[in-house]
């Protein structure tokens, strides 16, 4: 435990032996599936003719909504997502027909023979249009504490403004994929790249009109998920299943990169309006947020995402009076979905903007304002939804990081550099993250496991979580091995399979290890108890004269089971197992876990939605070429709280990877649609995620020491999502550099992502303003 062992699949990854959906051995009867999607953002389907396509060479089936044997529905929460469009289409990329043929080329040829007539209707493609048309997806929600109007009215200073944060594409390297294999009668096995196999199973059963018992979903590993396969991995599975049922053959669909980008949802765009009141020291007195998100054409997880945004608009700061209103808007774009951070990043970007503005207004260092407003240890430690911020590590992390990053000295150096350089400006910023861990939909906070021990003393662990690179299976393997006191190579974690562990929650909300780890631990404890009983009996039988070994005396360590009081009474683990079998004791056990101590009242907006909070901070320094808008990330220092890390190698990887993903969202990743609703950035040619050259030149990541977390397995703390939001430190540092162009006297225009274009246009505005004001004295 707490060891840096490599990812359980590392050797398979580097040799190319790790199998993803598209790599599974194919049978001669395998068919390739293709999705024909809507070319209109909003249209009525008037008529279509599939005859010619059905007759095309190699084609085995062409399906429309009429050919769905079960429910034409795949909405995960609200039933507003047809599996195939029937009467009309509501976004470009919406599935309308399915084709199965021997080859992909035959599918594409057949697609050209489909004759569909659409009548285009007016489409809503921006948040502004949705707001103007009052196209709400559901009723607005509100969370508040104190009287904001009073707070703003009496505050010495008030600022207001708005912030736009952009959509983003998950860009998992493995595009959405599923392979369905028919069994007898209604049986079907679905090999899927889904973060939520139980939901995939449910939806596949529903579209096929069969029962869950007839559908098995298996996920060996996912080639990257990041939330993009929490609900939308279900879609390809449903489509493949329909084709599989219609043809009686195995059918595989793997979306082509451009099609994946066109058809699937993104991170929600947000338009946030804010108003803040504060005192001369920069203490926040009241903040009003109006959050608006672009849900796209259907609900998907949009309300849960908005709810998390509402929970996290405070980020790490205590705000005595706060009022958050949230509206989720419907547009004619693919339904936006979960993406690492789940609404948190969008809300935190707004809060960090508030802090940054306060600092600039007061001519203070933003880090000072941040510190002044952190949640307190003893007081000012309750969030706007009533949860106490326990085990608050903000102050510890801040103090350590300010020192280790040499913030003060570097701030001075940055100022000197900026004074000496007209065309190059540097920026420096520290941003924190406080992130609540648990599904905010409380019933999802449960997990199951099934552990089998075989007669040769090896162990197969099944649990409900999916492995998508985050190292969940490695940690689970560590947990099982530690509990049984055996070496890691005796334990294998099985592919996630709905027939082994039923009714599981998605692997999301950063809960994978916390919950599944505990479920596995419980199963292993049951088994240990049974084994210990047998072993104790064995010891006593072998040596009846001597003292008695009780099952509680049995210790499991270093592949040996022994009596802790009489260590000479010992047996190898592998030797012990056949003895258990001979005694006719079961070596298969389930485990279950429900996260304790959480619960919250949605209607009142108060309670304890989170088991605990994760904390981290980053300091980033950038260099901006003010003539081109190009940005160089000079250095980033991160100090993150991973509790007593189960595997520091894996956790560091999550921090680095999360931060770089956040960096992409904050800088180069820009999603653009044209005026008809076509995605313009539909391939890596135009959609730019960070490369190896974009990471900080000097990159220092440290795990917080002495950080035992009382609320999760082995004192650990999840890492998965929170580091994404540390990317905001870069975003704020860039703004700091832009702001230096006008000597920090003017609030720069800014947006997220801060592309070179956003940076340059903002600088140009400042320059023009400076020219106009050149005659007037500038107050410093």
């Amino acid at each position, binding site marked *: 435990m707490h060891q840096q062992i490599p990812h359980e699949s590392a050797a398979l990854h580097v040799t*190319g032996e790790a199998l993803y959906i598209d790599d599974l051995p194919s049978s001669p009867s395998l068919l390739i599936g293709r999705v024909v999607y809507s070319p209109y953002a909003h249209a009525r389907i008037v008529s279509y003719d599939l005859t010619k396509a059905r007759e095309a060479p190699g084609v085995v089936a062409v399906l429309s909504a009429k050919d769905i044997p079960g429910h034409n529905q795949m909405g995960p929460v609200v039933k507003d997502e047809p599996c195939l469009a029937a009467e009309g289409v509501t976004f470009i990329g919406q599935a309308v027909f399915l084709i199965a043929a021997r080859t992909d080329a035959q599918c594409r040829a057949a697609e050209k023979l489909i004759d569909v007539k659409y009548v285009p209707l007016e489409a809503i493609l921006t948040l502004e249009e949705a707001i103007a048309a009052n196209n709400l997806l559901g009723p607005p929600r509100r969370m508040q504490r104190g009287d904001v109007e009073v707070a703003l009215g009496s505050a010495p200073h008030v600022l207001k403004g708005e912030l736009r944060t952009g959509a983003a594409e998950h860009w998992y390297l493995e595009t959405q994929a599923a392979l369905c294999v028919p069994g007898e009668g209604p049986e079907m096995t679905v090999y899927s790249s889904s973060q939520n196999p139980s939901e995939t199973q449910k939806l596949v059963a529903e579209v096929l009109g069969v029962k869950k018992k007839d559908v098995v979903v298996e996920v060996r590993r996912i080639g990257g998920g990041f939330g993009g396969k929490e609900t939308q991995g279900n879609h390809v599975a449903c489509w493949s299943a329909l084709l599989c049922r219609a043809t009686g053959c195995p059918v595989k669909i793997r979306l082509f990169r451009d099609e994946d980008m066109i058809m699937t949802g993104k991170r929600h765009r947000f338009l946030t309006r804010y108003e803040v009141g504060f005192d001369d020291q920069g203490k926040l007195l009241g903040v009003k947020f109006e959050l608006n998100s672009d849900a796209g054409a259907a609900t998907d997880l949009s309300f849960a995402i908005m709810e998390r945004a509402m929970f996290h608009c405070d980020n790490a700061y205590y705000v005595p009076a706060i009022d958050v209103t949230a509206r989720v808007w419907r547009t004619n774009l693919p339904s936006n979905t979960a993406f690492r951070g789940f609404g948190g990043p969008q809300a935190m970007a707004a809060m960090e903007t508030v802090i940054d503005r306060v600092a600039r207004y007061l001519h203070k260092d933003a880090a000072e304002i941040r510190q002044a407003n952190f949640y307190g240890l003893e007081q000012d430690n309750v969030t706007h939804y009533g949860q106490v911020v326990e085990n608050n590590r903000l102050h510890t992390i801040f103090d350590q990081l300010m020192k280790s990053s040499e913030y003060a000295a570097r701030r001075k150096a940055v100022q000197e550099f900026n004074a000496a350089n007209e065309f190059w400006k540097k920026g420096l910023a520290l941003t924190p993250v406080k992130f609540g861990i648990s599904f905010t939909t409380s019933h999802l906070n449960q997990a199951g496991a099934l552990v089998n021990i075989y007669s040769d003393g090896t162990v197969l662990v099944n649990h409900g979580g999916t492995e998508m690179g985050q190292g969940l299976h490695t940690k689970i393997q560590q947990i099982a091995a530690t509990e049984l006191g055996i070496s890691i190579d005796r334990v294998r974690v099985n592919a996630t399979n709905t027939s082994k562990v039923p009714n599981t929650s998605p692997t999301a909300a950063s809960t994978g290890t916390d919950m599944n780890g505990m479920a596995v631990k419980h199963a292993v404890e049951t088994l240990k108890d049974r084994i210990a009983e047998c072993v104790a009996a064995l010891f006593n039988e072998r040596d009846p004269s001597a003292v008695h070994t009780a099952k509680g005396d049995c210790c499991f360590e270093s592949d040996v089971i022994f009596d802790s009081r009489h260590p000479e009474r010992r047996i190898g683990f592998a030797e012990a197992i056949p003895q258990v079998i001979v005694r006719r004791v079961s070596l298969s056990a389930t485990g279950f876990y429900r996260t304790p101590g959480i619960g919250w009242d949605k209607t009142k907006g108060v309670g304890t939605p989170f088991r605990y909070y994760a904390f981290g901070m980053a300091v980033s320094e950038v260099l901006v070429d003010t003539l081109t808008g190009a940005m160089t990330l000079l250095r980033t220092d991160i100090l993150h709280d991973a509790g007593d890390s189960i595997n520091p190698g894996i956790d560091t990887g999550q921090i680095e990877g999360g931060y*770089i993903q956040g960096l992409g969202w904050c800088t180069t990743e820009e999603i653009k649609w044209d005026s008809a609703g076509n995605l313009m950035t539909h391939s890596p040619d135009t959609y730019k995620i960070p490369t190896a050259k974009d990471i900080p030149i000097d990159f220092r*990541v440290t795990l917080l020491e002495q950080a035992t977390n009382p609320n999760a397995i082995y004192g650990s703390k999840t890492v998965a999502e929170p580091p994404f939001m540390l990317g905001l430190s870069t975003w704020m540092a860039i703004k700091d550099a832009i702001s230096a162009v006008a000597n920090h006297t003017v609030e720069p225009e800014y947006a997220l992502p801060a592309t070179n274009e956003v940076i340059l246009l903002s600088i140009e505005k400042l320059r023009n303003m400076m020219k106009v004001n050149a005659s007037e004295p500038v107050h410093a």
Partner: protein
Amino acid sequence: MKNCIAFVLDGKVVEVAFGTTSLFTPTTTVLNYLRGLPHHRGVKEGCAEGDCGACTVVVGELTAAKKVEYRAVNSCMLFLPMLHGKQLITVENLKGPAGELHPVQQALVNAHGSQCGYCTPGIVMTLFALYKSASKPSREEIADTLAGNLCRCTGYRPLLEAAAEACSGDGRDEFAKDEARVVDLLNSIPCEGISISSGEQCYDQPASLNACLALLEKRPDAIVVNGATDVALRVTKEFEVLPQIIDCSRIDELREVASDSGALTIGAGVRVSEVMKIVRHDFPAFHQMLELFAAGQIRNVATLGGNVGTASPVGDALPVLIAYGASFILRSRKGTRTVRAAEFVRGYRKTERRTDELITSIVLPRPSARTKIRFYKVSKRRNLDIATVSAAFKLDLDRGGRVDDIVLVYGGMADCTKRSVTTEGFLKGKPWDRRYVEEAQRLVDNDFSPISDVRGSAEFRRIAARNLLLKFWSETNV
């Protein structure tokens, strides 16, 4: 060879036949070929356009010194016949005889270099080529080498660490032990040109310039390819069937480099990665441009001839070539002519080249010691991105500090690479002072009416274009 190609894979010579009964066409990509085999599915498709590196394989090629030289390339952009006479190495080939991991594989395991693992086979192959180059790379060079491999999980730091650990040696491994045998295998493959016809397609890979020119004369509609990094997109992204292809990647005459005191002459078929080495010292602005050009796997196949051949308004080479006063040698069966780079492009993706002609080389005159040339590329992401605006500027000042000659070439500002003639005219004869440069900045605006597109707005382009002039001034006024 007729309707057949041969290359080395898994330690033996493999022949692939084309024709009506073949599973393959001459534009089948190496990626799709490999993924159709039962034991080569480690190679992955992430984009099918050369932008992610998940499909990276290594191609071994005989050098003049009878050694094997290893290059990482994107298999998604490589047509099968391009393997002819070469060695194809995939991630499955790297393990040692007893199943032990190759040093680059082991280093990645140790450094936590894989998370979801989907990008990993491609990264292994890029690092394998780096390992074999025995170049003792710096961190900067490692990052540059990996810029063509996108990874969404790791944040790259462990990859850089693994590379630094594994690639610091002399390149010795199982492949080195087997090299002599592979050289023999490669030598056993006939080296004459190949000619493939397969249903709707014909594909020729002539082995000499003369043979190529003869073909060009006969087939005015044929598409010429060299690296095919531009043309392949029509197959991999647009699913076009290209009926006639003439592949000039095997023509030695196009790979020649000649240098004298007046000029450097680079064959049109010299790969960009080679060009980088050749121009590093004497043509720094050219080198600067190539450092920002695509990424390693593309540079290892893309050619200069292909870059100017595209006549793309955002192609990176043309602005620099114009600034250097370069010219192109065009050859056909009828003769040879020289066209100045500045006059080569005739409009949106239209060039001076007649269908029976080939660009055979590019002549780069050596600038005088006083001449200042710079290249700038404004792109959303620094590496592996196409320019939103690019510029190459050349400046000669007279002894009095006045502008003697100035060339201001812009990419991305019009439908083809274009000079800002008004600005040049204004600045000529003026002192190279900020005052005049600032005045000239306004004139840049008058020379162009850029468009707004996915890469940037017209306003952004305008501001960037005029700022680049000031940037040039700031770097040259010392």
